[in-house]
């Protein structure tokens, strides 16, 4: 007996939403809120803006879901909405804003990669965690919205290039090129925290 192919649960939830089952959409909201919040928050560096944008993202997705034909996955589709709305928001906002940062989860002290980072880099070890957070966010905000989106998805959220290219609707080459340029800029801003 052949094994049945694993069914993406999103497909069923989307179909039920399209048939008018609002609870199915609630499940999608609950499932994607943490991930999309991370995307929008790391692009805006402001908790309140991220919250408002995320509400708008889900509202737009709910209004448009009848037109979702499944040409891409729901994951890609909702991420595209979130990235595009956030980029538009950042372009309108310009430079007039204040950072409103979330606290760093104290579990970071137990994170293997963070332990390695602090062990190998004396500037990072000596820096106050809050100071490091402030500096990282300031450096991110110096990037253009498009470059910030790529850095957020690749470096912070760990998405592969192929997925990012689908979400942004650009080639993988463009994703790599944007990452290269953004890293050069970030290195200049974060020189003091260089590991070696």
């Amino acid at each position, binding site marked *: 007996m052949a094994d049945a192919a694993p069914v993406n649960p999103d497909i069923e939830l989307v179909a039920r939403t399209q048939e008018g089952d609002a609870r199915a959409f609630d499940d999608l909201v609950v499932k994607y809120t*943490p991930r999309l919040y*991370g995307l929008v*928050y790391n692009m805006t560096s402001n908790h309140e803006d991220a*919250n408002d944008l*995320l509400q708008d993202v889900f509202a737009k997705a709910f209004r448009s879901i009848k037109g979702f034909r499944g040409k891409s996955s729901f994951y890609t589709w909702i991420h595209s909405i979130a990235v595009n709305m956030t980029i538009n928001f950042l372009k309108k906002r310009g430079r007039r804003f204040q950072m409103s940062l979330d606290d760093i989860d104290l579990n970071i002290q137990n994170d293997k990669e963070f332990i*390695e980072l602090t062990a190998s880099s004396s500037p990072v070890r000596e820096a106050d965690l809050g100071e*490091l957070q402030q500096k990282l966010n300031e450096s991110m905000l110096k990037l253009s919205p498009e470059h910030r989106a790529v850095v957020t998805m690749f470096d912070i*959220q760990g998405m592969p290039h192929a997925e990012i290219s689908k979400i942004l609707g650009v080639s993988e080459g463009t994703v790599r090129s944007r990452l290269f340029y953004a890293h050069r800029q970030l*290195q200049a801003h974060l020189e003091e925290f*260089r590991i070696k």
Partner: protein
Amino acid sequence: MQDDDDITKLLRIKRFEQPPPEYFESFLQEFKDGQRAQLLMEPAWRIGWDRICAFLGEHMPARIGYGLASTAVLVAAGFASFNILETRPIEMVDVASTPTHRLVVQEPESLDFGNQGNQIQLPDPLPAMAPTTSFSTPRYVIGAQPASYDEPPSSF
């Protein structure tokens, strides 16, 4: 490449920036409240229109929709052309009953073809120019031609 790895390691610290734990628990309720509030702010006609669109979208296959739309366009076009014809009826002119002026064309004597003259009946070209008042002589004359038969205003 080493530099890229350093940057990536540093940026991973941002993964640990998290909102308070209760934020994600209350987000769904906040979203629903926002949706409800937005719905209440929308005008009634918009809600009605959305419902009609949703109903038609659900219950009407595309083929029927296109057929109905095409029929509606044809009916509208037919109605519009019918109205155009109705508002501009063809005027039938009874030539025999219209006043005529007799024009006598007198041929020069040197070109006498044996006719006394040809008589051509022409319809009155300017029936509206006939005097409408009791004045038989024009009130104003410009360049020896009558310009108006109207009486001057009493204020003069």
